[in-house]
């Protein structure tokens, strides 16, 4: 079936004429294409119509372009119920993009079209934002996987001509004390993954001089076999310098690092499950990171942007050139010719298909009119960065690739970018968890201390401080607040020197709720990301979605995904917060089973004047503490239940008053009444007030009897319920009347006071003292797990 051509280099022609379905699948497996039988048959038909057999370069191109990673075929395909009735056409179009389309907001400048979403900032400047997943590579090689994840998402932002100004990272690991004997063959221990991933993220961001300002670390057994690594990057650009107008005759320039064998089949690897052999088979799929190369590349790209020398740009990520070149041509309604021989290689004797699909890092593809070529090459040279013309954009819509004077690939772009529609079955059955029955513990102080030290709540200071969050000198609100390193809800950046306008960056994620219902998990994640943003003064918020899910070919996995996506639509509409970018990573399965389905929601808000930003720490003794929002018996999936080894059933919901509550918080901040603000999330009211107290070094008194609530009669439930849309705010007593006026019609109550004494004292429903602890005890519990 494989015929080696008599050429001075390795090129195979694969016989697809009159072969069986079984043989087609064999070809897909042997070449590592990860294509289905339907897709292989479409490929066969195409070449039959052309009356010839494909080369390995052509088949690899198809494999890359049609991979889940590059084409997101599950999100674009049809979803049917187990009996075959169509549920919906495309998850992406029906839910994610649809909300944005219906909201139709003028400040969404360029969304879902490019590598990163772009929203308006001010005076001609726009903000670009993208969050990527890099789970599969990080499971094999945590340092390299996480570092190149960061490098890749930075290039996504460069790929819309934006200057990177901040990075984010959200990580999920198995428990760090996981028993070694339980670890399946081929899986790496969570502790090893944790150390490697954290080091990789710091290595790339720090070396590039981009502050890593926001993130989260989450632990769950469901991540033992499948680590989750989300890397985000935010950039700023003068929108009049944005250009996407590649024309016939333009030169294609490959800029940045050399091309090597690192990152071969990264995307097809990311589109299959992890097995015990993954390391052996797919080690070469992990790329090697060189942040300094990307730093030089960034400088050069910003220069050519400012001098308006180019017509288009895209980054080389999954699929390398094979994906970027065709995509750029197809998007610009032209063809492309590429001469592989011109590409600078890391190693000798690479086959043409390897050069073509290599995912070597720190590379970008640029299109430019021929007359500007010399200027562009000079600019790259002045930055010690490489750039080489490798081809040109042509008439027609054909992709043509040559190597050493021989045609190695000729493909119609209309074929390549119209893969067969994928049909997948979705079937979600509501899991049955009962609400646990157990008596209210007598010692609630020790419950609070235990919660503060659980890995999901405890301070991540020892990790955060290994990321440079100050470089560029624009971090107004740090991830850690003041002397006691309190947990601020969002980071705030002031991107422009001559303006006080800022951006607030926050996130929300509740994987544990998804075990009960992915719909409410998604709704809660959106609510949490928004709460975090609103707490510091953010508004006009744009959202990003990142799904990490199991194998979508299994109906129960896809069933949950559909529910989560539906909530994304529903609540983007409710809050009027459009999605502007996103990314999914499916096939996160290992011998231990599927990953805990994880939806990360990232929020980008605007701060009209950074001098009015609100931090988390209590400021002045005797100020009033208000609780805004209602507390329900919603402990399903909560950290409190988890501590007691329950899941529960009453998952937190998002109610109709949520939007009004958030708007009221914003109005109260704008009026200047709020001294400190914190949202209530994992660990509920008790954890939130403890964090505010020990962050500010001020004590507090809190009366549970005054908490706005429905159907709760237990102190522990009031303390630890994780109901959404709730905030604690600190207000001077002199503004009491104004607060009452502003808050009219939404659940709120003055629940306590900030105190000079270094203690947190909480009184129960019957006014008895139920929690009493020194601030240093609380702070130590919070910091002891990971240290400082």
């Amino acid at each position: 079936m494989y015929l080696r051509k008599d050429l001075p280099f390795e090129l195979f022609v694969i016989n697809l004429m009159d072969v069986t379905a079984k043989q087609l699948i064999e070809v897909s497996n042997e070449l590592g294409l990860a294509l289905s039988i339907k897709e292989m048959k479409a490929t066969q038909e195409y070449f039959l119509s052309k009356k010839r057999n494909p080369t390995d370069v052509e088949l690899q191109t198809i494999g890359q372009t049609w991979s889940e990673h590059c084409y997101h075929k599950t999100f674009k395909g049809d979803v049917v119920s187990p009996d075959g009735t169509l549920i919906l056409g495309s998850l992406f179009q029906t839910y994610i993009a649809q909300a944005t389309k219906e909201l139709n907001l003028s400040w969404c400048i360029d969304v879902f079209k490019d590598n990163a979403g772009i929203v308006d900032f001010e005076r001609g400047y726009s903000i670009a934002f993208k969050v990527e997943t890099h789970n599969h590579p990080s499971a094999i090689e945590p340092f390299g996987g996480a570092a190149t994840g960061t490098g890749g998402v930075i290039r996504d932002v460069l790929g819309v001509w934006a200057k990177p100004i901040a990075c984010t990272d959200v990580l999920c690991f198995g428990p760090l004390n996981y028993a070694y004997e339980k670890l399946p063959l081929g899986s790496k221990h969570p502790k090893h993954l944790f150390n490697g991933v954290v080091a990789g993220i710091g290595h790339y961001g720090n070396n590039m001089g981009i502050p890593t300002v926001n993130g989260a670390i989450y632990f769950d057994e469901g991540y033992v076999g499948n680590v989750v690594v989300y890397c985000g990057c935010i950039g700023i650009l003068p929108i009049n310098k944005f250009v996407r107008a590649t024309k016939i005759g333009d030169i294609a320039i490959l800029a940045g690092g050399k091309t090597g064998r690192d990152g071969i089949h990264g995307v097809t690897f990311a589109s299959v499950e992890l097995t015990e052999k993954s390391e052996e088979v797919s080690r070469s799929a992990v790329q090697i990171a060189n942040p300094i190369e990307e730093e030089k590349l960034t400088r050069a790209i910003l220069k050519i942007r400012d001098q308006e020398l180019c017509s288009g740009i895209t980054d080389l990520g999954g699929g390398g050139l094979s994906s970027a070149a065709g995509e750029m041509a197809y998007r610009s309604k032209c063809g492309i010719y590429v001469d592989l021989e011109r590409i600078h290689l890391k190693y000798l004797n690479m086959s043409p298909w390897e050069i073509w699909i290599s995912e070597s890092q720190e590379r970008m593809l640029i299109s430019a009119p021929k007359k500007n070529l010399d200027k562009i090459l000079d600019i790259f040279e002045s930055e010690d960065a490489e750039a080489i013309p490798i081809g040109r954009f042509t008439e027609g819509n054909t992709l043509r690739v040559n190597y050493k004077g021989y045609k190695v690939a000729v493909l119609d772009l209309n074929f390549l970018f119209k893969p067969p529609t994928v049909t997948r079955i979705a079937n979600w059955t509501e899991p049955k968890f009962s609400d646990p029955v157990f008596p209210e513990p007598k010692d609630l102080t020790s419950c609070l201390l235990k919660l503060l030290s659980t890995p999901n709540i405890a301070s991540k200071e020892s990790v955060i401080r290994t990321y440079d969050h100050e470089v560029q000198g624009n971090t107004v609100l740090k991830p850690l607040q003041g002397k006691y390193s309190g947990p601020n809800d969002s980071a705030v950046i002031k991107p422009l020197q001559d303006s006080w306008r800022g951006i607030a960056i926050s996130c929300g994620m509740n994987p544990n709720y998804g075990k009960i219902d992915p719909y409410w998990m998604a709704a809660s994640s959106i609510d949490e990301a928004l709460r975090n943003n609103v707490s510091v003064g953010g508004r006009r918020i744009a959202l990003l979605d990142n799904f990490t899910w199991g194998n979508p070919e299994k109906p129960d996995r896809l069933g949950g995904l559909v529910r989560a996506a539906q909530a994304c639509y529903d609540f983007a509409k409710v809050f009027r917060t459009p999605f502007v970018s996103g990314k999914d990573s499916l096939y996160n399965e290992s011998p231990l089973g599927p990953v805990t389905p994880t939806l990360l929601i990232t929020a980008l808000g605007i701060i009209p004047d950074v001098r009015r930003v609100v931090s988390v720490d209590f400021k002045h003794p005797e100020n009033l503490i208000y609780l805004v929002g209602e507390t329900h018996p919603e402990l399903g999936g909560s950290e409190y239940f988890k501590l007691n080894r329950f899941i529960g059933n009453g998952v937190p919901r998002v109610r109709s008053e949520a939007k009004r509550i958030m708007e009221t918080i914003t109005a109260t901040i704008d009026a200047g009444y709020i001294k400190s603000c914190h949202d209530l999330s994992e660990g509920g009211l008790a954890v939130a007030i403890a964090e505010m107290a020990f962050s500010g070094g001020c004590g507090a008194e809190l009366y549970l009897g005054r908490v706005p609530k429905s159907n709760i009669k237990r102190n522990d439930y009031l303390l630890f319920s994780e109901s959404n849309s709730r905030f604690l705010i600190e207000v001077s007593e002199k503004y009491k009347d104004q607060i009452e006026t502003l808050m009219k019609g939404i659940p709120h109550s003055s629940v306590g006071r900030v105190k000079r004494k270094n203690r947190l004292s909480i009184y129960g429903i019957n006014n008895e003292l139920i929690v009493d602890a020194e601030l240093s005890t609380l702070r130590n519990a919070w910091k002891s797990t990971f240290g400082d």
Partner: protein
Amino acid sequence: MKKEDIKVCILRVGGTNCDAETRRAFNELGVVANVVHANKIIKEKNLLDYDILVFPGGFSYGDYVRAGAIWGKRIKTKLGYELRKFDEEGRLVLGICNGFQVLVEAGLLPDFEGFSESPKAALASNTSIKYECRWIYLKHENSGNCIFTKRIQKGERIFMPVAHAEGRFIFPKKNENEYLKRLYCNDQLVFRYCDEKGKYAAGKYPISPNGAFHDIAGICNTDGNVFGLMPHPERACYGWQLPDWTEQSQILRYGDGMLLFESMVDYLVKR
């Protein structure tokens, strides 16, 4: 010299990344600062057109081998003559973080007997064995030799962030006491890590973020015109950059970092 005539060169190479905020600090004081790629200044040989030379923070050439080592050797071989002249004429050289590492690797600091052939000190890996991004207190130790801290009283305590993995200032073990004595005799000691109340860190983490010998955070040369420090003054220039500004009733206009830039400009204006 008029303030408008002061010329500042912020030198960069691949991997440098704190140039923009360093330039902003000079601009804030009405001084023009140019960010210049080292390739350009090596080619044009015009270093002596400038009055102040800054080696900013970052990871020059990836800091492979050892932080600052590659650039340190490179400036000696490519800019050695001009740099020597620049120094002899008493012009100002500032190294921040990676810049400090470069000055030490190049043998410009400490210069007990002029530029040294091989480094006399090192900035080793932090004792915590990790990158440290945190705000720390510094006690000013200089009695007036250091041009860069004229605006700060001796014994005064200032507040700035550090961000580095290799910032533990050390001398060779066998010369430790001798070199320390020389630093004191020549008035070369500038900043030491201390706590909120001004008490020396005595190596205690995280008051000393890196475990430096004698809590040393910054030193100058014998003439006081070359100065290097691990903390980042350019990130502590404005009140809103402080980690606790939201706790204050009023936002300060400037942070302590600005004092260093003001000292440099004052000196040149008065000269």
